[in-house]
């Protein structure tokens, strides 16, 4: 073993595992959190998450019992926290596919140590997101009406409604992400099965590993399947949030009816997704001692993507405003001036501060490599993206007809349902870090110098011992 990592001799790139580790050590360090006796902190975190989940169950139970009147939605603000939170969670769920599929197709090898983690985050965020449309229909037991199932009512869903497109977009996204995540997990599940010492572990990982034996034929099929799924998932990165933006853009509300919405929503989604990955990763890598796999280099790369997408979002805000003026449409102009100086000015300026001003700090390498500052920025990014959706939805409060203006104030149940979705999210997450490998073991091994076919040429002395 060498003490210090050095750039690859051919491409001079920074090593992705730093300090370097042997193949054996990588398996050991990723498997450790699953094989430890669960520490007290894990139990406390699980208890906290389950408490939030309980709050969610209580809020939703009361909602089902009483009806959507327990929320602050009203006329004219028929959409409130439910859609704000839906769009927010779906947006967060975008980083996973971007990292796993798009970066895979672009051969960005630094994705290998964060893709599993962010895909898991994606899936859990999508579950949280889907909970909102499910409960906001009021009669959740009639949810199956959104599916085109033949029925005696002779009624089909309204295929011209973007809300229905949303159902398909998000459920396709959820299922493809889950499939992609699971296929990627199979070799690692087999590793865990083979390491398992207890019967239940052998069965749990054994069932999930689907009989993986690491044969050449298995790997060949695996690589093809993974590539195909990456190809399938890539358009979804763009399509899902485009369709989510149609919920607004297809309507005729001033401030919503704009063609910039799809790209602007996609950029915002990736922005918030990377924000959430950073928030969670900065904590997880230190708790689970994975700093050598998820290096500062990885975190810095994520910060760069955040800066890029944050700037795109800032550009979209400016362009929206410009077009409102340039179009000469008085209602459109009023909407944007109202956003800035109307009753919800505080939400607008919070959004601008968090999404446009704060990410500019990421231009500086010292900030990108400072985990504490980065952690704060990543949280502010998601606060800002929440306010973005709040600002957009609250456009409803003042439309073209002043006599129908109204206002919106969320109730305690709006807040408790929102808090409760964090319970869903973190309960899944706590279980995930304990029972599944949170870094793709097999993939990380492939980016080790040892995996390079020319690795041993003339380096026998330096890299012995594997």
């Amino acid at each position, binding site marked *: 073993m060498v003490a210090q990592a050095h750039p690859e001799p051919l491409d001079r790139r920074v090593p992705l595992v730093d300090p370097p580790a042997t193949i054996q050590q990588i398996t050991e360090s990723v498997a450790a959190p699953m094989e430890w006796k669960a520490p007290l902190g894990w139990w406390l975190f699980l208890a906290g998450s389950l408490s939030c989940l309980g709050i969610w169950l209580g809020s939703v139970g009361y909602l089902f019992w009483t009806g959507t009147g327990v929320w602050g939605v009203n006329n004219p603000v028929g959409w409130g926290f439910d859609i704000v939170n839906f769009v927010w969670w779906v947006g967060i769920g975008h980083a996973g596919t971007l990292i796993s599929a798009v970066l895979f197709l672009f051969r960005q090898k630094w994705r290998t140590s964060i893709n599993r983690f962010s895909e898991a985050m994606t899936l859990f965020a999508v579950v949280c997101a889907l909970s909102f449309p499910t409960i906001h229909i009021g009669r959740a037991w009639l949810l199956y009406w959104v599916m085109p*199932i*033949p*029925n*005696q*009512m*002779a*009624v089909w869903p309204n295929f011209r409604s973007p809300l229905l497109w949303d159902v398909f977009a998000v459920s396709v996204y959820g299922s493809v992400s889950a499939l992609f995540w699971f296929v990627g997990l199979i070799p690692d599940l087999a590793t865990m*099965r*083979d390491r398992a010492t207890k019967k239940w572990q*052998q*069965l749990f990982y*054994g*069932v999930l590993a*689907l*009989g993986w034996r690491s044969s050449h034929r298995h790997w060949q099929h695996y690589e093809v399947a993974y590539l195909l799924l990456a190809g399938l998932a890539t358009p979804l990165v763009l399509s899902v949030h485009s369709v989510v933006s149609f919920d607004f853009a297809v309507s005729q509300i001033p401030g919503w009816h704009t063609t910039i919405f799809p790209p602007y929503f996609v950029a915002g989604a990736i922005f918030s997704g990377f924000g959430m990955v950073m928030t969670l990763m900065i904590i997880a890598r230190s708790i689970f001692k994975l700093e050598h796999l998820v290096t500062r280099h990885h975190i810095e790369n994520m910060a760069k993507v955040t800066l890029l997408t944050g700037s795109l979002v800032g550009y979209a805000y400016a362009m929206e405003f410009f077009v409102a003026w340039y179009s000469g449409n008085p209602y459109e102009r009023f909407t944007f001036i109202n956003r800035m100086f109307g009753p919800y000015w505080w939400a607008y300026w919070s959004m601008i501060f968090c999404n446009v001003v704060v990410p500019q700090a990421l231009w500086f390498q010292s900030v990108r490599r400072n985990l504490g500052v980065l952690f704060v920025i990543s949280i502010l990014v998601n606060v800002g993206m929440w306010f973005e959706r709040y600002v957009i939805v609250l456009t409803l409060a003042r439309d073209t007809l002043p006599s129908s203006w109204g206002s919106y104030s969320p109730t305690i149940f709006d807040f408790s349902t929102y808090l409760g979705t964090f319970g869903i999210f973190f309960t899944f997450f706590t279980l995930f870090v304990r029972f599944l490998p949170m870094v793709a073991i097999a993939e990380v091994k492939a980016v080790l110098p040892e995996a390079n076919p020319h690795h041993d040429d003339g380096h026998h002395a330096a890299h012995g011992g594997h």
Partner: protein
Amino acid sequence: MSKLFPRWMNHLPTVLAVVGPLAGVGVVAAVNYWFSPKYTDVGYRPEQPVPFSHRLHAGELGMDCRYCHNTVERAAVAAIPPTNTCLNCHRYVKPDSEKLALVRASGETGQSIPWVRVHQLPDYSYFSHDVHLSAGVGCASCHGRIDQMERVTLSQPLSMGWCLECHRNPEPHLRPPSEITNMAYEPRAAGYDPKADPARQRALQPPENCSGCHR
């Protein structure tokens, strides 16, 4: 390492891939058949407190439906007649019949006869008899051959899909206003063309939107 799973489990994915979709289709088909009002409701034929025979009154005696259900042309609900409507005749016809004991008692006390409702729509659907009658929908179209029923039986599913079948293509089901209560009238056999009828007052555009029936 010892063998974890038996060998037959290798077939599990194939079996699931075949059985899964079939089960999905099967559930939808089963719900469509066994849960539909066509299966659960048609043929409903409750015992009534008084063995009133529509076959006798509307069929053999040829009484018009509107003699008893007198609000049907003017109101949403086709009235169940008050006991006095029965007694108009039965004061003189079979005044001592055993079967009419409850009718006489009701006439004396003023307590309604507890008829059991056969044709029941859900509260969230706003059905109006007068509109359907003036559009030329005959009684028999929804209630069947009441004039041949000893005891009233639900002959149509009264489901939403069944309503929409006619709302989407009403013409074959319509008849001239003069034939509304004619139980034996067959629009198709009679060659009636609602578009050519000068007596027709309503346009042939039954609502298909949600708020047509769910207000």
